[in-house]
């Protein structure tokens, strides 16, 4: 059981490329921390630095009160689940799990107990003598998990462990991983690019972009109060609508704080109505497209007086387009003109550069 603390951690490659630009994260004992961000944001590099597979250019990594910067991966008391599982193809499932224990000189009886216990938990008992190539993707994933848990390490590290599975299995395994982690109560760091996985798994969510931390916190807090427009549009699907507060109708509707340059509204915070709400925002839209998902309907509308949108963020809509979520299967028809309302307390306001939340 241990905390993991990253203090001003940096990674600069020999070519001069700075992959991690000073990261501070504190993961409490038994917490499940998820690093999320688009590809190339440095989340995997950071995880590999915790594992000891990448050197640390500057800063400190502390696992359970011990600075591990110079310690070999094997001696950090961590276990890791790889994206491609990295199972030893020539060893049976049993030996794959037992290998790390035997290397540490554990008595064979204890090895057996631990492997069998892990196999029972992960429902791998019937396939202990098989080779990895005789297993399905989900089973391999479980062996990789088993290899991590038999070690009973201080920290689990997961590097996109579910990204090679199909959609259904991914959801099932996601739930399993969370249940398992709760039961073992082992501190975990988990890397993913899938914001849904991040939201559902995390105790602490770390949103990264360009080698830096954008925001750290409880997933719901981050969802409700994103610190930057990057976080606002990365977390949540479909993404938050971001609109510049120029000199158009929006500006006149909001008596926002000084410095606010961008308005954000989540699709589900709109109500379709012809009324006006005091302090809120009303948008007049022409319906361009409708997506029926069953339980909800997404309405894509274009604003009548469109202005230039906010600069490139992941999942962003074309300028002037707004997504509105309507519950149920009914919605307006294409070409219809509608009015979408959002109350004052559902508005997110950011500075014009998107780097800071102002209200």
């Amino acid at each position: 059981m241990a905390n993991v603390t990253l203090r001003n951690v940096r990674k600069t490659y020999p070519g001069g490329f700075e992959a991690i630009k000073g990261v501070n994260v504190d993961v409490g004992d038994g917490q499940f921390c998820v690093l999320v961000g688009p590809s190339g944001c440095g989340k995997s590099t950071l995880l590999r630095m915790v594992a000891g597979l990448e050197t640390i250019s500057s800063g400190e990594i502390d696992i359970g009160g011990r600075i591990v910067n110079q310690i070999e991966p094997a001696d950090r008391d961590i276990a890791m689940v790889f994206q491609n599982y990295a199972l030893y193809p020539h060893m049976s499932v049993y030996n794959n799990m037992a290998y790390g224990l035997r290397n540490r000189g554990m008595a064979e009886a204890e090895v057996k107990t631990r492997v069998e216990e892990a196999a029972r938990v992960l429902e791998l008992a019937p396939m202990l003598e098989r080779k990895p190539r005789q297993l399905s993707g989900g089973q391999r994933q479980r062996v990789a998990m088993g290899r991590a848990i038999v070690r009973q390490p201080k920290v689990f590290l997961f590097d996109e462990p579910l990204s090679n599975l199909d959609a259904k299995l991914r959801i099932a395994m996601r739930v399993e991983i969370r249940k398992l982690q709760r039961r073992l109560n082992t501190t975990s760091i988990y890397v993913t690019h899938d914001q849904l996985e991040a939201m559902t798994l995390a105790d602490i969510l770390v949103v990264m972009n360009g080698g830096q931390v954008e925001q750290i916190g409880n997933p719901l807090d981050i969802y409700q109060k994103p610190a930057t427009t990057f976080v606002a549009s990365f977390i949540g699907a479909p993404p938050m609508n971001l609109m510049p507060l120029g000199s158009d109708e929006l500006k006149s509707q909001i008596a926002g704080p000084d410095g606010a340059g961008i308005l954000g509204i989540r699709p589900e915070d709109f109500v379709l109505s012809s009324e006006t709400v005091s302090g809120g925002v009303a948008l007049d839209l022409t319906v361009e497209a409708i997506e029926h998902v069953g339980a909800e309907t997404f309405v894509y509308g274009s604003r009548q007086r469109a202005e230039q949108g906010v600069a490139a963020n992941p999942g962003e809509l074309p300028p002037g387009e707004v997504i509105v979520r309507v519950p149920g299967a009914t919605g307006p028809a294409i070409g219809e003109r509608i009015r979408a309302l959002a109350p004052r307390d559902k508005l997110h306001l950011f500075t014009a550069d998107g780097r800071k939340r102002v209200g």
Partner: protein
Amino acid sequence: MVEEEGIRRYVAHIILWIGIAIVAFPVYIAIIASTQDNAAIANGQMSLLPGGHFFETYYQTLFVGTSGSTREPVLNMMLNSLIMAMMIAVGKIAISIISAYGIVYFRFPFRMPIFWIIFITLMLPVEVRIYPTYKIVADLHLLDSYAGLSLPLIASATATLLFRQFFMTVPDELLEASRIDGAGPFRFFWDTLLPLSRTNMAALFVILFILGWNQYLWPLLITTRDDMQTIQVGIRKMITTTDALTEWPVVMATALLAMLPPIFVVVAMQKLFVRGLVETEK
């Protein structure tokens, strides 16, 4: 396709069988000759059907040798060939796999120069440097020894390149997982890399064994004692005497015994053989 049916198919079968017959004919003649009486052969009256001297000829060949020229039992020659081929195959695989491991899995000063020094040896077969090599082997007092027979033929980069190529395809995560599992360079090599290389090693072994067994020029130069002769050298010495004295049934039996082990390897381990052949020529 439709036109592949019918007559064209029979033509293909017939052509293939003719090809097989042409390829097999010299060996068929050798088998026949090894069962016949030397006098009939020397007269040019050899029958194309098996004769009755099978056991007699092979007993003499294996355990006695020719009555004239070398008088060395062929069994002994085969043993020499076997030892040489095994030393070449095993030795080359052993030194190549560890040097490829060093070059691929470590970073150290002069790594690339060392790689190139080894790589360049690919270009030159032993035939173009025989006399200087002979002199060095003589200076090292390795003439008429198994070490002298095999060491100069081990000095080549094919196997090193093959292993390097294979190691590059082993996912990095396997090394990382091993490091987290507490395995150092020795453990990783022994527990993971070596077992994964098994098929490649076997394929390479098949090829190297055949190449080693079939060496001719080098053993011809450095063996002077009859009891160190390999079978390829021995068979040549059997026909050096005037034609009339050549014991053709024994020569043919020796030829068949010389080709038996490598052919057995090719046919029995065909998959590995084909794989090895393709890999080493890449």
